[in-house]
């Protein structure tokens, strides 16, 4: 098998920069959302289309990032 249609893009979710990576292996699109800095995965999803996989990843990432507290320094 080969990885095909590999794409990366950045967007902002809940005020945090997020990096989306999506690609197709066989008939399945995979998507991971990471928090850019440090780069840890927030969500990993699958879908029949890129849009489906990305939409799920954005939703899960949004739920997690909305719980991040900012403290006054």
């Amino acid at each position: 098998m080969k990885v095909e249609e590999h794409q990366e893009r950045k967007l902002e979710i809940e005020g945090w920069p997020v990096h989306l990576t999506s690609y197709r292996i066989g008939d399945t699109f995979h998507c991971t959302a990471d928090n850019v800095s440090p780069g840890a995965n927030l969500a990993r999803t699958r879908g029949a289309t890129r849009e489906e996989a990305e939409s799920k990843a954005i939703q899960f990432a949004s739920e997690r990032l909305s719980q991040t507290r900012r403290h006054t320094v």
Partner: protein
Amino acid sequence: MSDYAHPEALVSTEWVAQHASDPNVRIAEVDVDTSEYSKGHVPGAIGWNWTTQLCDTVRRDILSKSHFEKLMAEAGISNSTTVILYGDNNNWFAAWALWQMKMYGHNDVRLMNGGRKKWLAEGRDVSTGVPTPAHASYTASGPDNGLRAFLDQVQAAVQGGHTSLVDVRSPAEFTGEILAPPGLPETCQRGGHIPGARSIPWGKACNDDGTFKSYADLKALYGGEGVDGTHPTIAYCRIGERSSHTWFVLRYLLGFDHVRNYDGSWTEWGNLVGAPVERGAAPHAAKA
């Protein structure tokens, strides 16, 4: 890669594609996200789970020597095997595995430059097959605790002031604005950093494609913060995996002789009763 102090510590994706099936080469994927391997990996690569196979699962510690030997043997790795490690997040936990392999004296272990990210982006072959290597015989040495910093050594470094402390977390974690990476559970009671530490986030050592920056760029990056290898150096992050990535950069790409990974990191220091903590940005570094 030839300008690095130890260019032999890295291989390219192309090298892996050409050598993955060599009998004396073992490829191992180690991911932050332990489900990544099952999606598809470098053909012939085994997968190691950092949460269950690369740490003591009872007490907080690295693998014991006996468990390390068992892991190697079951992976078909002998003392003379060339081991290539790679993983997601630009090789975070691949570097963690490499750090442990060096602690236990494995001679020939290298990172695939660019990690899983680059392999996928290049559209290379992947496999979901899980190899079942024949068991090998393995005898570890060490552990070489000269590669590892413990709490008392970090405390002494703070007191003594003759050690470079490198905080590789994100700027917001360094200042104390957030207590954990965005979207992850808070795992400390206090935010901030170890007094005297310089903030050099791990990711600054990488290019967009996941490969390491050039020797000149890395030297400028760390040297610009006064970290030039003239003093012993300790890298830390939250749990020790990002700092093992920086440890690799300092030890093998820049060639620092005395660099340790403080795997206790902020989950130890930021929960320690009475530990001194600095908050906010670090003052400008004295240039080396």
